[in-house]
């Protein structure tokens, strides 16, 4: 096969899948079910997943004039994103009204979004990163607006769109400044140029701009303001997707930029990231304490989790990169899982919104209640679940680099966090009040069960035998860290 094409094979597969879905949709009867299109998207995603794994056998290298690179790091995030998209498609198949128009579009948009995110993780050229970011952002803007009928839907989508475009503009401006300072937009080349001679102020400002842009995308404080509103208004399966996959991609990009292009400037960005981490953890957890709306609560929780992930960035070591990658996986598994339960229980239109609406869920459906409890326990960070090992590695890496205060703040935060997760957990297991709400929950369908099995199994495996995933994360980290170690000398 053409070597160039092989390096973007998963993206190609997903693009073709999306295009076919777009073309096939108008050919279907007006009222016929669009769900076969969803299953086709599932197949395409599976193919992309295997294609990504196959990429591991390729020799490391770049393609298309050095803009795309496949290495253990990109493959790691490709597989993660494909996994998230797979689970999201299954959850959407469960909760979406299959006969509605534009449902085909929805599946196609998920595929296109995935293409953008995957491109972000394998791009080694800032402009291509930007293109990936735009592809993924635009498809999530549209998906966020999928509940056009409800009042919250368009409001949240417009908020997301305006602030999101603003952030991408920052990102682009940052790229421009860095190009001005170094004369290149290739990430590795920037790193090489910055090692010789003085560090231009322009590059530092550009880096700050990029931090702002990505900070918005991962909803890290102080750029988190949009998150609760958007999550509240968007359909639950979409929230499950956009709280994990685009964030994982953005973190992957940020890690690559910080570690490969700017390892020398670490004394500039390390304190910034430190503060972002601490702020995100505190703002997220304290904000979540007061929320009555489950989706808003999970939104604040995702801000806090971005903080934990950023904590790993500050470690400046292979361990730190591996911990961040590992955390992205564990957070994805449990968060997609919990949104699978929320989507099914609440439906596409959010029938259940408040914490107290979930009272007695375990009585109505032991399966859904048990799954929700399991994911909450993992989010709290109880051992033998993925959430625990995620936090464990992050803080072990931070402590290893001497960040004692960050570790203490982080773990105290995880203590605070358990309060709001517990409130939901206690509600799920207390006696039901709103039986009419709970009676509206349909029986779990096949795709939902598949999605739950996938996420529960992933969370358990990450919690009991994390060795395999961790060694993959390490292998990925190895491709970035040489830059740091050489720069440190």
């Amino acid at each position, binding site marked *: 096969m053409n070597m160039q094409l092989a390096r973007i094979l998963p993206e190609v597969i997903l693009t073709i899948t999306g295009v076919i879905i777009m073309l096939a949709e108008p050919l279907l009867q007006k009222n016929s079910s669009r769900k076969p299109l969803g299953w086709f998207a599932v197949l395409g995603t599976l193919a992309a997943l295997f294609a990504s794994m196959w990429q591991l056998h390729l020799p490391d290298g770049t393609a298309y004039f050095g803009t795309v690179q496949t290495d253990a790091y990109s493959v790691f995030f490709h597989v993660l994103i494909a996994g998230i998209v797979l689970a999201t498609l299954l959850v959407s198949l469960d909760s979406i009204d299959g006969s509605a128009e534009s449902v085909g579009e929805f599946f196609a948009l998920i595929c296109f979004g995935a293409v953008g995110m995957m491109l972000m993780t394998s791009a080694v050229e800032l402009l291509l990163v930007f293109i990936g970011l735009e592809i993924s952002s635009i498809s999530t803007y549209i998906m966020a607006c999928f509940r056009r009928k409800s009042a919250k839907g368009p409001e949240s989508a417009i908020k997301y769109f305006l602030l999101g475009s603003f952030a991408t503009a920052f990102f682009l401006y940052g790229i421009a400044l860095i190009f001005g300072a170094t004369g290149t937009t290739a990430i590795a080349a920037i790193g090489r140029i910055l090692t010789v001679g003085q560090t231009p102020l322009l590059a530092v400002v550009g880096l700050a701009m990029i931090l702002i842009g990505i900070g918005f995308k991962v909803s890290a404080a102080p750029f988190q303001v949009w998150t609760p509103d958007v999550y509240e208004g968007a359909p639950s399966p979409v929230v499950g997707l956009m709280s994990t996959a685009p964030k994982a991609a953005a973190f992957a990009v940020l890690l690559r930029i910080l570690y490969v292009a700017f390892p020398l400037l670490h004394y500039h960005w390390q304190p910034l990231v430190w503060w972002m981490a601490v702020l995100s953890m505190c703002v997220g957890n304290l904000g979540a304490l007061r929320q009555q709306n489950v989706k808003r609560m999970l939104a604040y929780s995702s801000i806090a989790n971005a903080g934990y992930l950023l904590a790993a960035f500050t470690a400046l070591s292979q361990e730190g990169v591996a911990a961040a990658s590992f955390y992205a996986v564990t957070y994805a598994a449990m968060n997609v899982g919990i949104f699978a339960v929320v989507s099914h229980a609440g439906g596409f239109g959010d029938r259940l919104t408040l914490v107290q609406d979930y009272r007695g869920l375990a009585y109505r459906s032991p399966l859904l209640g048990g799954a929700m409890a399991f994911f909450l326990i993992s989010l709290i960070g*109880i*051992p033998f679940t993925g959430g625990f090992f995620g936090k464990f590695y992050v*803080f*072990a890496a931070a*402590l290893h680099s001497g960040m004692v205060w960050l570790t203490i703040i982080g773990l105290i935060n995880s*203590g605070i966090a358990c309060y709001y997760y517990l409130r939901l957990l*206690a509600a799920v297991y207390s006696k039901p009040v709103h039986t009419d709400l709970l009676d509206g929950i349909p029986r779990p369908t096949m795709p939902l069960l598949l999605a739950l099995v996938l996420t529960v199994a992933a969370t358990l495996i990450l919690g009991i035998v994390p*060795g395999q995933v961790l060694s993959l994360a390490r292998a990925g980290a190895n491709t970035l860290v040489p830059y740091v170690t050489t720069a440190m000398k």
Partner: protein
Amino acid sequence: MLNDSILSLITFVPTAGAFVVAFLPRRGKVIQWFTLLVTLTTFVLTLHLPAHFNYGQTGFQFEQDRAWITSPNIRYHLGVDGISTWLVVLVGFLSILGVLASWNAISTRTKEFYFLFLIQQTAMLGVFVSLDMFLYYGFWELSLVPMAILIAMFGRNRGPQAAIKFFLYTFIPSALLLVALLWLYSKTGTFDFVETQKFLSQYGALLSPQALWWVSLAFLAAFAVKVPVFPLHGWLADVFSEAPTAMAMVVAGKLGLYSIIRFNLGLFPEQSRQIAPLMIALAAIGVLYGALVALVQDDMKRLIAFSTVGHLSLILLGIFCFTVVGLNGAVYHVINHEFSGAAFLILLGILYERYGTYEMSKYGGLAAKLPRMATLYIITTLSLIGLPILNGFVGEFLILSSSFGVHPGWAIAATVTVILNAGYMLLLIQKVFFGPESHLVASHPHSDIVAREGFALVPAAVLMLVLGVASPYWIRTIDTAVSRLAQNVAHVTSTLTTTIAEKR
């Protein structure tokens, strides 16, 4: 052969049972019978430990050490010594009592109840047998989850609040414990308890003393909340009055006290030595406070909660005297108190099943109607008070006599409360069983202890007597581990005093 895997077997038989329970039909008493079978099997397996215990060996026995996660270096390392052996057996025994106590009390959501109940057993057993500190931490945290869910599900009226309170109280200090563990790991490169102990005794002086001090404090705080030590006992009364009997029985005491002995005394003898005056003072205050508050309770579950605070503080007093006798007494009293306390809670549960209230003032004159129950109540009460020839006496006597030599003032204060203990317990018996028959008692049909309840309580009563008379049999096992521990701490003191003397 069996010796290598016995601890894994003991720990995971309940888990396996839990997953079978998840697939059993909710018909009749199938789940109850099966769980009883699982707990009986576990108990029989735990008896293997004392039966094959090697008294000549001081270190850990029945060890199993396998690689689990290579990086960070986490091993699956299990083992017991004289301190933990009988605690493991105790957990096994109490789990049977737990099933029998829940037999009729838990009538709805039985599958959820017994599933979580069995997971809770695994977590508690795991805490006692883990020698890798990471594994230990895993079980330690895991033990919170089934407990909290069960309190939320089966609480009498404010279950969810009590569950959240319990979880927050114990989880937040545990987070700091994790920081401490990670810090130790970053210095020693191992989570193994034995290795860490060796490292700290050899190179501990090279580490920053201030940091070590904070680390030991983080350990102590996490354990003290779980015990609970005065003034961190805020969660206990609520949990006791909300939790189902089978959970209230095991929630306090042994996990925290065992961990203090194992980790604080084992890893940080010097720091323990330094903080001992504070802990002794807290313990003595706790003994007094528990007894005084218990004296004015009308709700019997809350009464027993505060009485538990008192007893656990007494054990703490024994621990921080650092004498062989005191430590022997402390470990022995952990067993005794868990045991008699559990029996008393079961008796309270039985009373509640029949009359639907825990308020003492509603009862009166039961002894004439329920003579067998009255007898069991009185035996258990006398054991809790610490009447000689019953089990409670041995532990109390050892603790108080050893503390008298070290801290006479506090020991006197603690001894006075033995009288208070007798006061509130006998007051309870008097109010509930004697005096004129109350309206509540008269209006309910009376049924004395039935066979199932007798099956749980009569062996317990007999054991109280046996533990009281034949204590050397148990103490012999405990002594093998405790004497070395006490030496360690004493050794630190002597070197400490010599260095201080040299400085002068």
